[in-house]
C-alpha cells in the first residue's frame, strides 16, 4: 500500500534512498552520542555549516553534468574572500568611513563580480581553447590560492562590516521566530500551488494524471517537513550572553528563568535554499539547463542540434565562480575574518557532495537537490563525529570510505536498473 503510494508520486527512488540514509545516520549519531545529535542546537548548527558546501555543490552538479570538473573553487573562495575582506575592512572605511551602510553591498557586489570573472576566464580557456577542465582548474587551484595570499601578503583581515557579518548566521544573522514561520507558510503555499499548477496543466492537455492521493501525500509530506524544520530552528534559543546584550540595548528587563529569544532560520541557510531553488529552476525549467544536460548526454548530438555548446560550458563555469563567491561571503562572514587559507580542500568536499548526491562523473546525470542533500549528508557525518569526539585523522578516513562506498552502491544500483 505505502510502496504503491510512493511509486505513484513518481519520486526518484534514488533520492528517497538517500533521504533514508540521512535519517539512518542521524538516528545512529543520536543514539551513539547519548541524545546530543537530534537537538535544535545541533541541527541548527548543521544547517549553517552545510550551507557553504551546499551552495557550491549546486554549481558543481552542472559542471560535472557537462563532463567537466572544477578543482579551483576552494582557492577561488579563498581569493574572493580575501578581496571582499580587504574592500570592507580596509578600502571602504578609508573612502566612506567606518561601518558605512553601503559597505556590505559594495564588498559583496565586487566579490560576486570577481568570482564570475574568474569563472569566465577558466570557462573561456576550457570551452574555446579546448584545454581540459581538469588542467585549467588545477592551475586555478594553485593560482587563486597564491593570489589569496598576495592580497595582504598573508595577513588575516578582520573585523568585518557588521551588516556583512549577518550572512554568516549567529544570533543576529537569523531571522527570528515570526519571520521563520512566515517563510515556512509561504514555502508551504508554494508547494501546494506548484502541485496544483502541474495538475491543471496536465489536465489541459489531457495527459495521464497522478492519482489525487499521491499529490495530497506529496503536499502533506512537503509541508510537514518545512514546518518541522522551522519549528526546530525556532526551538533553539539565543545564548545567554547575546540575550543580555540585546536586553541591555533595548532596555528590557530579563524575567526570572531567562528570556527566550528564538534563532529562527539562519540567513546563510536562507541564502542556500534560495540558491537551491534558483539553480533547480535553471537546471530544469530553462533552455540553458536543458542544453547542459544534452551536452552531458551526447556532446556531438548537442552540437548537431545547433546548440552553442562552447558558450553553454563557459556560462556553467561563470555560474560556478559566482556560487564560489557567494560561499566565500558566507564563510568569511561566519568567521568574522578573511584568511588566505579559507576554503582549503573545499573543492573536494563539494565534488564529494555532488557525487554522493547522485551526479555521475561520466556526465549527463545529476540533480541540484541531490547534491544539496549530499552536502548535508557529508556535513552530518563530519559534525556527528565531532560530537562523538572522533579524532580528525579518523574523521577523514571515515569520510573517504563513505564516499567510495556511496559511489559503489550507486553504480551497482544503476547497473541493476539499466
Amino acid at each position, binding site marked *: 500500500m505505502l510502496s504503491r503510494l510512493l511509486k505513484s508520486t513518481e519520486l526518484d527512488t534514488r533520492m528517497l534512498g538517500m533521504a533514508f540514509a540521512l535519517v539512518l545516520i542521524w538516528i545512529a549519531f543520536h543514539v551513539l552520542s547519548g541524545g546530543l545529535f537530534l537537538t535544535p542546537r545541533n541541527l541548527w548548527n548543521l544547517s549553517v555549516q552545510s550551507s557553504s558546501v551546499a551552495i557550491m555543490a549546486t554549481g558543481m552538479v552542472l559542471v560535472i553534468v557537462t563532463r567537466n570538473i572544477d578543482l579551483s573553487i576552494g582557492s577561488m573562495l579563498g581569493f574572493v574572500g580575501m578581496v571582499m575582506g580587504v574592500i570592507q575592512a580596509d578600502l571602504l572605511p578609508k573612502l566612506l568611513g567606518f561601518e558605512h551602510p553601503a559597505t556590505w553591498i559594495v564588498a559583496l557586489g565586487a566579490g560576486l563580480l570577481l568570482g564570475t570573472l574568474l569563472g569566465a576566464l577558466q570557462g573561456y580557456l576550457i570551452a574555446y581553447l579546448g584545454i581540459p577542465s581538469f588542467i585549467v582548474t588545477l592551475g586555478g587551484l594553485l593560482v587563486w590560492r597564491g593570489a589569496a595570499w598576495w592580497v595582504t601578503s598573508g595577513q588575516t583581515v578582520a573585523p568585518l562590516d557588521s551588516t556583512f557579518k549577518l550572512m554568516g548566521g549567529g544570533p543576529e544573522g537569523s531571522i527570528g521566530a515570526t519571520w521563520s514561520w512566515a517563510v515556512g507558510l509561504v514555502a508551504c503555499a508554494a508547494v501546494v500551488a506548484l502541485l496544483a499548477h502541474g495538475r491543471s*496543466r496536465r489536465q489541459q492537455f489531457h495527459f495521464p494524471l497522478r492519482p489525487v492521493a499521491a499529490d495530497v501525500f506529496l503536499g502533506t509530506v512537503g509541508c510537514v517537513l518545512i514546518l518541522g524544520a522551522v519549528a526546530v530552528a525556532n526551538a533553539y534559543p539565543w545564548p545567554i550572553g547575546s540575550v543580555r546584550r540585546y536586553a541591555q540595548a533595548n532596555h528590557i528587563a530579563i524575567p526570572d528563568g531567562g528570556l527566550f529569544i528564538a534563532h529562527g532560520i539562519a540567513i546563510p541557510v536562507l541564502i542556500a535554499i534560495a540558491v537551491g531553488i534558483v539553480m533547480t529552476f535553471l537546471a530544469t*525549467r530553462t533552455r540553458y539547463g*536543458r542544453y547542459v544536460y544534452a551536452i552531458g*548526454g551526447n556532446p556531438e*548530438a*548537442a552540437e*548537431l*542540434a*545547433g546548440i552553442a555548446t562552447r558558450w553553454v560550458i563557459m556560462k556553467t563555469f561563470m555560474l560556478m565562480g559566482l556560487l564560489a563567491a557567494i560561499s566565500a561571503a558566507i564563510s568569511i562572514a561566519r568567521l568574522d575574518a578573511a584568511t588566505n587559507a579559507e576554503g582549503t580542500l573545499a573543492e573536494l568536499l563539494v565534488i564529494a557532495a555532488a557525487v554522493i548526491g547522485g551526479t555521475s562523473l561520466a556526465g549527463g546525470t545529476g540533480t541540484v537537490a541531490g547534491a544539496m542533500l549530499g552536502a548535508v549528508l557529508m556535513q552530518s557525518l563530519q559534525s556527528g563525529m565531532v560530537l562523538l569526539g572522533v579524532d580528525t585523522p579518523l574523521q577523514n578516513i571515515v569520510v573517504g570510505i563513505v564516499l567510495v562506498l556511496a559511489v559503489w552502491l550507486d553504480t551497482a544500483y544503476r547497473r541493476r536498473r539499466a
Partner: protein
Amino acid sequence: MTDAAGTPLVEMRDISLAFGGIHAVDRVSIDLGAGEVLALVGHNGAGKSTLIKILSGAYRRDSGSITIRGAEAAIANPRDAKSYGIETIYQTLALADNVDTAANLFLGRELRTRLGTLDDIAMEAQARQVMGRLNPHFARFKDSVKALSGGQRQSVAIARAILFNAQILIMDEPTAALGPQETAQVGELIRQLKAEGLGIFLISHDIHDVFDLADRICVMKNGTVVGTARIGDVTKDEVLGMIILGKCPPGAVPGPGSGRDLGSLV
C-alpha cells in the same frame, strides 16, 4: 528533377573537403528537386556521409557552392542548415540519451512559455502527435531515450526531422536499426513526404530499398561521383558495377569518378 522554372531545390556544385591529405569529397556536384528522392550509394568511406554532413552544416566545405531554390545558401553550422529547412537523420541518430523524447525532438528549438521557461507540456503534446504518426504504440514519453529500443530511438530521430516542416530531408541509413515492419513504415513515410513536395537524400546500403523508394541514384566512390541515373534506366547489377568497379553504364550520366579505377583493375 526540377520545378517549373527549371531550378532544382538543392544544387551542390564542385564540393570538395579534405581531411589532412585525404580527399573525403572531391569536386562533387549533385542536385535534388522538390518531391524527389535521390539515393546516394557507395562503399563505406565513399564520401556519402561527408557530403551530406556538409549540407547539414556539420562540416564546412573547402570549396564549392550550395544553392537552394537558385539562391546561394550560406551554411556554416547546423543552425544555418536548419534555417533553410534542411533536416537530417544521422546514422548515429545524434540523440541526447539522458533526456526524454520530447526534449530530443525539440533540442535546440525548445518551445517556451510567455515567461521564457521551457514549455514541457506543450512539447510533450506535440511529441505525442508526431510520434503517433510514426509509431502509434509508442507510449514511453517519461523515459530517457537511453531506455528505448533501437527502433524506438530511430523513430525519435525521424520524428525530429519531420517535426519542423522540413523542405529538404537527409536520411543517413534511416532503417539500419529497424525490423521489416518498421522498415516498411519508413518506406511509406518517405512516399508520403515526397508527395508533400519534400526533397529527400537517402543514403542506404540496401540496393532493393533504393530501387523501391528512389527516383534517381547517385553512386559515389573514393570521394567522387561515378555516375547518376534515373532508376528506370539502370539495373541493379549495373548499379553494383558502379559501386564496386566505378564503371558507368550507358543508362547513367557519368561523373568525374567514372572509370577512374578501371585501368588498374582490368
